[in-house]
């Protein structure tokens, strides 16, 4: 913004808007970059203090299920939720199969493909109870390893008849599922861990298909690791955030135009209500813009694109979603992410203390 613009009477409003909202126009998104740094805007104190942050920060939980959660973080810079998102994806450790010992594999799926498939199976095991395996250690200890066994042999079903064509009737154990896996407790693991709390998250994940004579005999070691090393260690299916959409109607839209306007947005964003003037006319009213996908379809209509709606997104209101793979509940994952960010700072503060 050039200095000459500040002379306008609406400059205060202009600055206020650029600090608080991203504006979605037909062809571009305005105010995309953050300008709230000290020295940028006269009359604003943009220095960061914990007291101010404590006043501004709000966290609202919208829903928590076993595997998913949605919540709002309000009053932070984009770098903060982004740091949490990145940590969730790649810095929180989980357990996953990392060593596969194949004693026998006569199925048609190749050893390396099978090993890769096994690695991707989500495991329920609290990673906080384990340690990272030391480099070069091939044996493993009860502190860093979960051992599983997968021994399956496919055979003919003795009670089959000539009329049977369905594999279900013809064969036994022709589907290798995660339920075939057996946990083998090492050392004192039997007393420390509950057998319900250890194992694949789902019992019905298909690992391989076999035919009579095919056989699998595999020993598996699940190790602790992070998503940075391999995506199989990531504790989330995904974690993402988006800014809160805001839709403002600038004039009354009625009748057929109102119906068209409604169709430009996600369901539930625009409501059609009876016009106050009566006469059975319907006018458009903003109901809830939260779940709008911000398609900007409204700009396709010549009569609606000018001075009818203002589409914006709140700059510091983040709608955060976490979808866990099942190793840890989503609300625990976020707590772990915050701890990891704090831990990262502590490591470097300690190094600063000992001098550069």
């Amino acid at each position, binding site marked *: 913004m050039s200095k000459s613009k500040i002379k306008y009477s609406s400059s205060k409003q202009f600055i206020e808007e650029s600090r608080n909202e991203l504006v979605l126009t037909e062809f571009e998104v305005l105010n995309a970059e953050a300008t709230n740094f000290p020295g940028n805007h006269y009359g604003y104190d943009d220095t960061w203090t914990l007291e101010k942050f404590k006043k501004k920060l709000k966290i609202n939980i919208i829903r928590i299920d076993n595997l998913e959660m949605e919540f709002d973080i309000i009053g932070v810079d984009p770098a903060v939720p982004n740091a949490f998102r990145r940590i969730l994806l790649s*810095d929180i450790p989980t357990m996953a199969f990392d060593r596969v010992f194949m004693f026998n594999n006569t199925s048609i799926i190749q050893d390396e493909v099978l090993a890769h498939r096994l690695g991707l199976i989500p495991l329920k095991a609290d990673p906080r109870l384990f340690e990272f395996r030391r480099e070069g250690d091939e044996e493993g200890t009860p502190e860093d390893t979960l051992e599983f066994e997968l021994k399956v042999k496919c055979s003919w079903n003795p009670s089959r008849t000539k009329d049977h064509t369905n594999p279900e009737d013809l064969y036994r154990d022709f589907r290798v599922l995660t339920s075939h896996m057996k946990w083998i407790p090492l050392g004192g693991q039997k007393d420390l861990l509950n057998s319900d709390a250890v194992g694949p998250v789902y019992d019905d994940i298909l690992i391989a298909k076999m035919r009579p004579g095919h056989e699998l005999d595999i020993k598996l070691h699940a190790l602790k690791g992070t998503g940075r090393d391999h995506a199989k260690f990531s504790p989330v299916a995904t974690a993402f955030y988006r800014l809160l959409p805001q839709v403002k109607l600038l004039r009354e839209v009625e009748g057929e135009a109102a119906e068209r306007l409604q169709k430009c947005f996600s369901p539930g964003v625009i409501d059609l209500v009876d016009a106050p003037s009566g006469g059975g006319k319907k006018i458009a009213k903003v109901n809830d813009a939260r779940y709008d996908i911000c398609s900007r379809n409204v700009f396709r209509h010549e009569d609606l694109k000018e001075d009818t709606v203002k589409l914006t997104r709140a700059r510091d209101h983040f709608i955060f979603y976490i979808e866990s793979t099942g190793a840890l509940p989503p609300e625990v994952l976020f707590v772990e992410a915050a701890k990891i960010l704090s831990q*990262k700072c502590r490591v470097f503060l300690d190094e600063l203390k000992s001098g550069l």
Partner: protein
Amino acid sequence: MENRRLVVAREDEQDDRMKTFIFKGEGHTLGNALRTLILKNPDVIFCGYTIPHPSENKLHLRIETKEMSAVDALREGLEQLQSLSDHVLETFETAVSDFKSKQMEV
């Protein structure tokens, strides 16, 4: 020196008010969050970060200040980021326990 994760690049740079720090094993996660907070310090003239090469796990963070030393600005930024994430953690945990107790009532 081998195990240090934080070192100063260009040790010949005499001025305490401008320094480039190298964080080993860090990336955008810490880099962007730290840069944003350090820029909120009114004494800081410049703060920026880069990851010079994608296959080298290193983060370069440069700070230039008016009065205070760059190391102090970095320390302040790290302390602020730590207190920020601690406060977010606290707020989140209260929000979750409030949410769960409300759900129990229903």
